[in-house]
């Protein structure tokens, strides 16, 4: 085990896999000479050279599609978006080509590709630079969607994503790149795609949260513990396919659920969790599934507004007390 920053864990996953398999390359804006806008790919160009670590012009649609064409041909590209906000110009490539060509070709062409980069809020950057995209991609069959909350998961899941033969949308976070944690250094350490992780056990209420929201969930659980209430925190880690089994099992124990999701609320991952729980655990729910999301507005610039915009641990805590009818 090593103590790594999240960015280092991501890098380690890429480096190890690239050492293992020559068909993997990394491409994106500023990934090579500049060593990555967020230094995720630091040193990788020196290590692998210009052939395998490749800078691009600001042409997301072009290089996302280039990656897809290369993966159709059997290479295994890792395409970095500087952030997922900039992938809207490449959305067509991802939701039409990545998600659907395998199907339309009767299975002849596969897309072993990973699209990765930071997702969601990243501070006072205003509306176009703070979008959470998980629900947008998760509704497309053909894609897999992973969103990570800590260095170890980042490494294990990214290695799985790179080895996977289907296109994976891999969601990171600028805020968390500097977060440190223990990371396995087993070169074959992979975490299965589609398996949730229980971050904390409890029996009174289930809190579901991924990426940064997981940490809001954990903080709220601490606050609840101070009230003598043990919350169970589930990090789904994979959004598509979603590990319903683990969440449902937890809710069948706690009978209550709060979902924390940094997206705007409408038709979000939180909505889907509520659908599934009321559908599959109807008789176990002692209260409606509650959700704490970003406010239903674009992200503002001003410091106070931006703080108010995002889900807070305090809001999660209160929602938990609400579903426990403790208010």
């Amino acid at each position, binding site marked *: 085990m090593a103590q790594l920053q999240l960015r280092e864990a991501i890098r380690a996953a890429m480096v190890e896999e690239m050492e293992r398999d020559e068909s993997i*390359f990394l491409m994106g804006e500023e990934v090579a000479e500049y060593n990555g806008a967020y230094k995720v790919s630091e040193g990788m160009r020196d290590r692998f050279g210009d*052939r395998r670590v*490749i800078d*691009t*012009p600001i*042409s997301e*649609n*072009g*290089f*996302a*599609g*280039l*990656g*897809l*064409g*290369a*993966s*159709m*041909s*059997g*290479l295994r*590209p890792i395409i970095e978006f500087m952030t997922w906000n900039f992938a809207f*110009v490449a959305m*067509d*490539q991802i939701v*039409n*080509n990545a998600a659907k*060509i*395998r*199907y*339309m*070709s*009767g*299975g*002849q*062409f*596969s897309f072993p590709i990973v699209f990765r980069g930071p997702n969601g809020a990243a501070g006072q950057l205003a509306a176009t630079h703070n979008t959470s995209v998980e629900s947008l991609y998760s509704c497309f*069959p*053909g894609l*897999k969607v992973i969103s990570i909350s800590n260095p170890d998961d980042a490494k294990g899941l990214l290695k799985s994503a790179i080895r*996977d*033969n*289907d296109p994976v949308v891999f969601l990171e976070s600028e805020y968390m790149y500097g977060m440190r944690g223990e990371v396995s250094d087993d070169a074959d350490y992979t975490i299965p795609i*589609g398996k949730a992780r229980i971050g904390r056990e409890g029996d009174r209420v289930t809190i579901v949260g991924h990426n940064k929201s997981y940490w809001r969930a954990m903080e709220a659980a601490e606050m609840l513990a101070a009230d003598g209430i043990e919350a169970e925190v589930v990090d789904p880690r994979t959004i598509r*396919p*979603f590990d*319903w*089994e683990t969440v449902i099992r937890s809710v069948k124990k706690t009978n209550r659920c709060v979902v924390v999701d940094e997206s705007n609320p409408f038709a979000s991952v939180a909505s889907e969790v509520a659908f599934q729980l009321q559908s599959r655990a109807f008789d176990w729910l002692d209260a409606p599934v509650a959700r704490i999301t970003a406010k239903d507005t674009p992200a503002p610039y001003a410091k106070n507004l931006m703080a108010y915009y995002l889900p807070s641990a305090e809001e999660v805590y209160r929602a938990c007390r609400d579903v426990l009818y403790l208010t």
Partner: protein
Amino acid sequence: MATKTDVSDAIQVPESTNGQSNPPFDEISVSLSFRKYSGERVLHTDLGLSVQDIRDIYRNMLLQRRFEERSAQMYGKQKIAGFLHLYIGQEAISTGSAYALKPGLDTVITAYRDHGLALAFGMSTNECMAELFGKVGGCSQGKGGSMHFFSREKGMYGGHGIVGAHIPLATGIAFAHKYRGDGGVCVCYLGDGAVWQGAFHESLNLAALYGLPAVYVIENNQYAMGTSVDRAAAEPDLFKQGISYAMPGALADGMDVFSVCQAMRDHIAMAREGQPSLLEIRTYRYRGHSMSDPGKYRTKEELDTKKNEDPILQLKSYVLEYGLMDNDELDELDADVKAEVIHSVTFADNSPPPPLEAIYEHVYTQGDYPFIE
């Protein structure tokens, strides 16, 4: 030969608003030259094509024609549904290209008007017709239909329905050829309408920047649905688009299979050396955009003029003129093609529809979809 752009069509700019006698600027002059491939200048022997090759070429073009005529008929009988975009009139491009590429090594990709290319690159009439019928025997197992013919085996990376969206894919396929060093070239066919998608611009720059073995072929059939090129393009000489990427551009005659073949060979040779290029091939589609289009946006005269340039008729004249086949041989070949096409209809008719469970197949490589939930 005088052409519209022969000498200079420097864009007109007004006088400077500056009152000085000396203009406040220097002139930067740029001279460019583009090749214009004319079929008239090429004989089959110049291309190293044997009489048998010419027969095969003629047969292949005719096969595309008859296959599509038959599929139009089958569409009328509702054996085929959805969109059906016919390639009729453009066959010299697909077949001419096939004689320029290395089978088994080079790769092709195109838009939704893909039947001709599929048949030129060795896909069978059976698998193609069955795909149109939506049957398991189809090249895409009935999942793709007319717009989505694929054959990994033949290096046919598909027909694609979103205009322009396959151009970045082509760039990536070329990237893979280079990355692997396999010596292959990817040819990307696109319509005149697709030039105005941002994907075109981004892709060509990437290909030129990375020196990818790609040839971008604009099949300029003069129309994108009902929009003629000059109503969509501020600069209708599409071969000039390459300038923005320091990429060679050229023009070929899509009604002449020799012009196409010669131009493609030159451009593929460039690509194999790592120089991507842009080739505009001027052609014409005789039918409407799709089955529902009556084609009112063009005159009968225009259509008739173009029908006189029919690439199949032109080749037929050449074949007769040079005595490469006689009328009996041509008739025989005609009958043979017809039989093949009819056989493909029978094949397609007899092929079963996909079972309902197949709906969940091919979504993921992972076998257990819908994932156990």
